[in-house]
């Protein structure tokens, strides 16, 4: 499976599809940190929210890099389960690179203060990353079959993740806990709320990935 992950990452980079996500990340980082020095925990909380659509878009781009017939060739080589897992792992690897880039860059320019915020910031980005990979997978061509539907899923999912996560939302559990995590990080969270939000993020992602796997069974 690692060989298939490597093959997909190679195609993603060589095909120039890594560039849009990189530029999107630069824009997000510029907007978030352009106003001056910020507390790390608070800034990273909002960074995790802002990166959610970027990482989801990157995941879609990566999963769509391969022509449909090549994806089917991969299925014959490694089987449907490992083919699916390799795609998600490759998307997560690209997302992890984006998160590292977005977290390290502000330090290099002195835009962040308070090293104590690094660990909770890393947690918020990890929660955002797994949920974004799930959304990107749902928006991929293997599921949506068309660019238009893919973009619709990506944009709708990203908007709902923010709107449904607003303070006072009646159905916050329908969205990944990005906004809740950003609010907690600004208020210096306790460990109990971190565990609850982690469980929420993992459960949300598990449901989305299960939906992705189910749809892939019938849409090869």
């Amino acid at each position, binding site marked *: 499976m690692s*060989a*298939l992950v*490597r*093959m997909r990452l*190679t*195609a993603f980079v*060589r*095909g120039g599809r890594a560039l849009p996500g990189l530029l999107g990340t630069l824009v997000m980082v510029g907007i978030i940190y352009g106003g001056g020095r910020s507390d790390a925990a608070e800034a990273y909380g909002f960074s995790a929210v802002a990166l959610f659509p970027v990482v989801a878009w990157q995941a879609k781009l990566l999963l769509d890099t*391969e*022509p*449909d*017939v*090549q994806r*089917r*060739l*991969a*299925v*014959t*080589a*490694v*089987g*449907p389960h490992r083919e699916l897992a390799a795609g998600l792992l490759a998307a997560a690897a690209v997302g992890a690179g984006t998160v590292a880039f977005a977290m390290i860059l502000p330090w290099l320019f002195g835009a962040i203060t308070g090293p104590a915020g690094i660990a909770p910031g890393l947690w918020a980005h990890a929660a955002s990353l797994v949920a974004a990979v799930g959304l990107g997978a749902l928006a991929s061509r293997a599921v949506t079959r068309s660019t238009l539907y893919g973009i619709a899923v990506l944009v709708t999912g990203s908007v709902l993740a923010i709107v449904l996560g607003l303070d006072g939302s009646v159905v916050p559990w329908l969205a990944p806990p990005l906004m809740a995590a950003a609010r907690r990080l600004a208020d210096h969270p306790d460990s109990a709320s971190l565990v609850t939000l982690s469980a929420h993020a993992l459960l949300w992602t598990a449901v989305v990935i299960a939906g992705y796997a189910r749809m892939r*069974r*019938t*849409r*090869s």
Partner: protein
Amino acid sequence: MRLDGVSYRYGRRGAWVLRDVSVDLPPGGTGVVLGRNGVGKSTLLQLVAGVLRPSAGEIRERPGPVGWVPERFPADQPFTVHGYLTAMARLHPMTDPVDTWIDRLGLTAYRRTRLGDLSKGTAQKVGLAQALIPRPKLLVLDEPWEGLDAAARELVPEIVEEVTAAGGIVLVSDHRGETGRLPGAITWTVADGTVTQGDVAQAHAVIEIAVPAAEAEATAADLRAAGHDVIAVRTKAVV
């Protein structure tokens, strides 16, 4: 390998492409899938290869590894011929050396060529190579002769014989009449969503004839009535 009551449709509300198909192929056997364009030959091959899952029924005792040659090789990928075949070989635990098939299929001059720069026939050879590198026990060939040069076309029956001699199973579709070169093959005829398993095919020869265009349909009908298999009717000469 046995297909047991296999049915398939694209999507839950799609029309059935295949209904209740039950056929089998023994180890060392060759199957030739026959039928008009659009009847579901490629779908049947993809079900056999494991690319598609049956909507109903199951495929038993599918041998592995599986080599599948798609009708159109996906050349729109940022790899060279050697880079692509090496990456595909790494997906399998046991493979032939990549260069063995590069040399045998006449791809040596294209080792460093990007897939997107290949002609259709050369890209098809890459598709053939990636299927053969893992030493397949089930080789599924969808129109393998399409676009190949004369030397490579001669090689296909040779490869089929090698796979079956090693106890593997080969399934081939073809509308050019080239499968006449595979004596001993069992025919699977696809029509109206069903597959009929025929007898062992005899060796066939392909005769190309030219008639006035106005008489083409009538001649084809006469030939069919006489029990011949009319493979194609072209209105333009192919040089």
